[in-house]
């Protein structure tokens, strides 16, 4: 069982509501659900589409061929009919369902009077989505009670009662019951996107201060923390600009609070000087870069893995940083916790490289075990430092015992200028050499905390990927285990290369698969190992990677 349902309309038509209803009913029936979002940078009009993939196996990427297509407006058809790179979204097997009022004129489409009956029954054209939902459930072979239960969970209470008759009549439409989706048992699982899993992990990690400036596709994290601010005593401050947000992050962390900042590439550009400040003052900070296609404003609502090279090098001068790139929403939770741990332990900035695909795609994940979470702010314990306290006391590891103001009676002195052990500015050039050494020495210890990349499959062709491309790559390699092998990174700096090199030795052909135009990760590998990866599959049209897209490109290379 593996079914993909696409709902597509103009922004404001209710694609989100119908999509949420379909995802909810399938999740509650015990299927692994994946729901992506594709939208334009506007509030009304444009294209707003969502695809729900439900399956009895866990998937992290969409597949492009639609099984059930629900277009809400004729204007959306060219986007789906034009195909999708190598992928064709609508094929001979695609079933179509639409409202008689939608203006959609596709041969073979089932038309039902959704808007007309919604107005008659609920006095509200928007209730047409609930009517359509009823018909979708009927086509999927889902009982009305299950559809009603999902509706009760998704719709606000104040509009629920008038929508239930609409659902029932939609369910009673003479549509063909095409599928059968019996209830399955799927306990101890959650439905989350990476905005939610990163936000939740931040709260769990003790974040009590968030500073940021709204920017798609990162705003979901800010909104998540804001929605939970009252419950958990969090200060969420929308700063005047990203420069302020990042400097606030350093100020809050200096004063003892765990913080979070989230942004996308353009906002990260304004945070670069504060990243360097965190490096110089040895202040732990955590920033999320939810990547979108760039340069400049780029494609605000689309996805790309194009900021790796930028974030890796952002900030003037030499300092140590930790970069992770979660594979999935599930992974994002774990890596966010790790980013806080390493940032605090090594007193360095950490950047989580997410992207629009991860940020907006709901996916079924096993429930995280909070009992396994161990938190440590790594603040100095009494007796662990020499007195008088010096913030930058030289130590063998380079990391000095860190106090925050009012933790003890000792003042805490930090400086963006080159400084002495006490934290006061000095232009003593011998001191400079000691301090640079101190700041960068810790990279070796940090590297020892990096996990190995994941390896899948046994084939002679080795695919190398990182971050959110995992879902598509995993699906492809599991389909072709004798042809393909995958080595996949979710921690990209410092780069742990042993396992990669061993895999590259064994491979007949190595292909870098990335969501950017210049194979940035392959460039990093070349720099770190001296091994150049000549073959690439690169996607930079703003759409997420899919197994079919990569497969098509590999056919061109004649490796499968």
């Amino acid at each position: 069982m593996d079914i993909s349902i696409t709902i597509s309309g103009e922004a404001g038509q209710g694609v989100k509501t119908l999509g949420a209803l379909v995802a909810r009913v399938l999740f509650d029936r015990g299927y692994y659900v994946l729901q992506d979002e594709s939208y334009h940078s506007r509030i009304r009009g444009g294209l707003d589409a969502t695809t729900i993939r439900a399956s009895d196996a866990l998937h992290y990427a969409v597949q492009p061929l639609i099984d059930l297509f629900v277009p809400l407006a004729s204007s959306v058809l060219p986007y789906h009919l034009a195909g999708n790179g190598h992928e064709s979204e609508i094929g001979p097997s695609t079933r179509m369902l639409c409202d008689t009022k939608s203006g959609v004129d596709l041969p073979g489409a089932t038309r039902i009077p959704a808007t007309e009956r919604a107005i008659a029954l609920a006095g509200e054209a928007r209730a047409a989505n609930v009517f359509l939902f009823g018909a979708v459930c009927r086509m999927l072979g889902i009982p009305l009670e299950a559809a009603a239960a999902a509706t009760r969970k998704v719709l606000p209470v104040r509009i629920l009662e008038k929508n239930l008759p609409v659902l029932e009549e939609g369910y009673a439409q003479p549509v063909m019951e095409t599928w059968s989706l019996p209830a399955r048992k799927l306990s101890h699982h959650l439905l989350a996107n990476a905005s939610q899993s990163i936000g939740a992990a931040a709260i769990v990690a003790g974040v009590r201060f968030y500073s940021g400036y709204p920017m798609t596709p990162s705003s979901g994290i800010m909104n998540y923390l804001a929605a939970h601010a009252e419950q958990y005593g969090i200060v969420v401050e929308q700063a005047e600009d990203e420069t302020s947000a990042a400097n606030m992050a350093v100020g809050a962390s200096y004063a003892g609070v765990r913080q979070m900042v989230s942004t996308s590439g353009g906002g990260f550009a304004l945070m670069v000087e504060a990243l360097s400040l965190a490096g110089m003052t040895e202040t732990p900070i955590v920033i999320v870069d939810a990547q979108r296609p760039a340069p400049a404003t780029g494609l605000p609502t689309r996805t790309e893995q194009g900021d790796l090279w930028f974030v890796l090098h952002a900030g003037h001068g030499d300092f140590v940083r930790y970069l992770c790139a979660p594979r999935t929403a599930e992974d994002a939770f774990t890596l966010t916790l790790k980013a806080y741990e390493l940032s605090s332990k090594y007193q360095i900035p950490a950047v989580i490289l997410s992207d629009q695909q991860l940020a907006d795609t709901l996916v079924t994940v096993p429930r995280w075990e909070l009992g396994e979470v161990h938190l440590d702010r790594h603040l100095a314990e009494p007796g662990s430092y020499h007195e008088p306290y010096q913030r930058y006391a030289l130590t063998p590891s380079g990391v000095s015992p860190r106090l925050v103001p009012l933790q003890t009676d000792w003042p805490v002195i930090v400086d963006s200028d080159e400084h002495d052990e006490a934290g006061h500015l000095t232009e003593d050039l011998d001191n400079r050499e000691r301090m640079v050494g101190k700041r960068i020495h810790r990279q070796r210890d940090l590297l020892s905390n990096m996990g190995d990349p994941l390896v899948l499959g046994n084939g002679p062709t080795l695919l190398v990927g990182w971050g959110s491309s995992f879902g598509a790559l995993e699906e492809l390699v599991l389909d072709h285990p004798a042809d393909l092998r995958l080595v996949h990174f979710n921690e990209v700096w410092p780069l742990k290369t042993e396992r990669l090199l061993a895999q590259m030795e064994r491979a007949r052909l190595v292909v870098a698969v990335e969501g950017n135009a210049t194979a940035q990760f392959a460039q990093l590998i070349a720099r770190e190992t001296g091994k150049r990866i000549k073959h690439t599959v690169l996607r930079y049209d703003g759409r997420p990677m899919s197994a079919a897209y990569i497969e098509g490109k590999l056919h061109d290379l004649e490796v499968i």
Partner: protein
Amino acid sequence: MWKNGMDIAWCPGCGNFALLDTVNHLLETSEMPRNRFLYVSGIGQAAKLPHYLKGVNVFNGLHGRALPVAQAAKIANGDLTVVVHSGDGCNYGEGGNHLLAAMRRNVDITLIVHDNQIYGLTKGQASPTTSTGTTTVAQTLGVMLEPFSPLATAVALDCSFVARTFVGDPEHMATTMRAAIRHHGFSLVDVLQQCVTFNKVNTFDWYKERVQKLPEDYDPMDRQAAFAKALEWGDHIPIGVLYVHERPTYGDLHPALHDKPALWQSWTTDMAPYEALLDEMA
């Protein structure tokens, strides 16, 4: 130059020395222990002042970015008394947007601007407060931009406490700065001071001849009068507390801060409260 056993990076005759003496006087006469103070600065000659203080917390950050750091530190650790010292270029130029937002945000911190109407550390370029027509190494045709009026801007933005003082009157400077620090809300003190090396127009004597204390019966609650006073500049330059608007601070308004222990102390390793976050996703 050496003072109090410290190698101080200011020119002989710099207005910053009188300012430093006043800050030291305030710390010596304060009932609060020194480690309750956090001095934040940006970059510039003024921004070095926190390094010359004893026993206080110091965050010497980036040029123009002292205010975001200071506000966040106060939010994170409300038990600190946070004072920012930086120059006219740092606060009125590079950090202009942060200044406007800080006045609106009304976090309970104090901003002391060392205003000598010139860039000193970068050696003599115009600052936002340099008079129109002044020629400098960079503005060789004379400054064409209208000078920025910090006090009029502050009154316009309903800044909670707005004052001006002069390094030539240490007593007035101490009184004004003490009142600003004690004020509950965001306080701006613009301190007129000479730059002996680069500002040959607005000299110590130039200021001395022009500054006038506000009259005894001046009402700083009167916003219209404050705005008129804030615009006065020329033969007479008013000094004193121009405007006060007691209003709730960010910390008074925020439920996570008001009547709560300092935010940084809310640290917990108990995971039980977080299961609810996961339940929501089920």
